[in-house]
């Protein structure tokens, strides 16, 4: 698709940057919520190109990073059981639990399989009726609908040897938590475009008004990010705080109604602990009563786990935008993507990994055209 390449056009980027420069009269701190956006920003050096005073704070929007340690430990426990086929997205493999990771469990003989789609896990269950197949269901509002559909299909098709370890998180309560934190420096949000593709924008006007903070729905290409920043800065300079959609090509105001209906059917809102941050009220989804039979936590006895977090890792502060990754002492020394101490170094969307990958390899690849996916 040609126009996607155009969304990385350096000439257009220059125009947007100039426009941002012309608009800025004082310093502003903006948070990009989504880890995918953090990656675009660091990879293309957008944070370094911005006029002085405009700071990007990296948000907690990496689902791998914020999955609570307790849930990781439960996953490791289940994955190690005989007779279980444990299916997960690839980027969970190296996320450290209290004393090992899924990769290690596989090395010790556990049947851990990487799938591209949750439907692959369902197919594996169909093909292995004598085994218990468990899928690790994590992610934000973008990943929750595929996982919800998979549980729904399991029930519809009467597949009984399938269950899901569910730890989904929701963005709006996280924004609420960030804005009400006493350390909060965030003055505007670039909202995660793909989350809004599913959920629409209805959840945001109330948040924007109550916290007097502009929220601009933003895409993932370099120009998308610059446009999100441009609109947020423009609002701040004018003293406005409304919700704008700068990612119209993929976000309708109502989101995807079919996906939202399925979410409502399969999941229910619950309080959820975010790794490194703590419990955020109403910030998660778990399987609803009707689907309890597919809940791996009910099927397997995994309570009473005691967790042990790395004492060195400061990923909680990174996730809340309080420090930048390289301010962590372990960064690039005892903690690297090959040997991560915290989840923010493991996940390709984690802020620590982004800094490690792009900063350590020299200057950022400023707006080079590289195909996505």
């Amino acid at each position: 698709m040609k126009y996607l390449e155009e969304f990385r056009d350096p000439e257009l980027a220059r125009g947007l940057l100039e426009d941002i420069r012309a608009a800025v009269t004082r310093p502003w701190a903006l948070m990009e919520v989504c880890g995918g956006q953090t990656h675009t920003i660091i990879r293309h050096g957008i944070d370094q190109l911005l006029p002085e005073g405009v700071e990007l704070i990296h948000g907690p929007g990496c689902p791998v990073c914020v999955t609570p340690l307790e849930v990781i430990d439960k996953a490791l426990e289940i994955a190690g059981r005989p007779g279980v086929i444990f299916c997960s997205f690839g980027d969970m493999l190296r996320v450290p639990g209290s004393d090992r990771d899924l990769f290690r469990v596989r090395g010790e003989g556990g049947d851990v399989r990487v799938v591209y789609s949750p439907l692959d896990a369902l197919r594996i269950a169909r093909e292995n009726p004598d085994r218990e197949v468990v899928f690790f269901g994590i992610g934000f509002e973008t990943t929750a609908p595929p996982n919800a559909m998979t549980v729904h299909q399991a029930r519809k098709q009467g597949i009984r040897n399938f269950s899901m370890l569910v730890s989904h998180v929701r963005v709006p309560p996280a924004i609420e938590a960030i804005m009400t934190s006493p350390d909060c420096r965030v003055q505007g949000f670039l909202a995660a475009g793909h989350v809004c593709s599913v959920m629409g924008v209805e959840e945001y006007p109330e948040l924007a008004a109550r916290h007097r903070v502009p929220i601009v729905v933003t895409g993932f290409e370099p120009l998308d990010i610059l446009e999100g920043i441009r609109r947020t800065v423009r609002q701040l300079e004018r003293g406005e705080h409304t919700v704008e959609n700068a990612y119209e090509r993929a976000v309708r105001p109502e989101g995807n109604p079919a996906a939202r209906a399925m979410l409502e059917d399969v999941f229910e809102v619950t309080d959820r602990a975010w790794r490194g941050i703590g419990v955020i009220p109403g910030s998660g989804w778990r399987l609803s009563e009707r689907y309890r039979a597919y809940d791996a936590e009910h099927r397997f006895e995994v309570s009473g786990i005691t967790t042990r977090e790395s004492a060195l890792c400061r990923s909680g502060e990174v996730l809340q935008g309080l420090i930048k990754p390289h301010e962590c002492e372990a960064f690039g020394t005892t903690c690297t993507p090959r040997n991560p101490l915290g989840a923010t170094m493991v996940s390709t969307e984690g802020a620590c990994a982004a800094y490690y990958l792009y900063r350590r390899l020299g200057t950022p690849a400023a707006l080079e055209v590289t195909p996505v996916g």
Partner: protein
Amino acid sequence: MCLAVPGRVMEIEERDGARMAVMDFGGVVKDVCLEYLPDLAVGEYAIVHVGFALQRLDEESARQTLELFAELGLLMEEFGDPWEAAAAAEAGGAGAEVER
């Protein structure tokens, strides 16, 4: 994992009681579930995440956005400070910075 990517529908079929498509992601071909976008047609684009099409990609608004961006560049040339622009060009300024 959270990266949703745009793809183009090549074929559509029912499989295991679900509406499925074969989609092209710039040369990489994958199976995609269309249950959330049941009226997506062959040739159309959608944002796909972990094997599910989640939202139709609207090429028309993509064009509009790009036009807006282009216009912003033009406006700068029209109303920007020519002295500043000249100085920036001399110092290998903004443009060079972007291409750095």
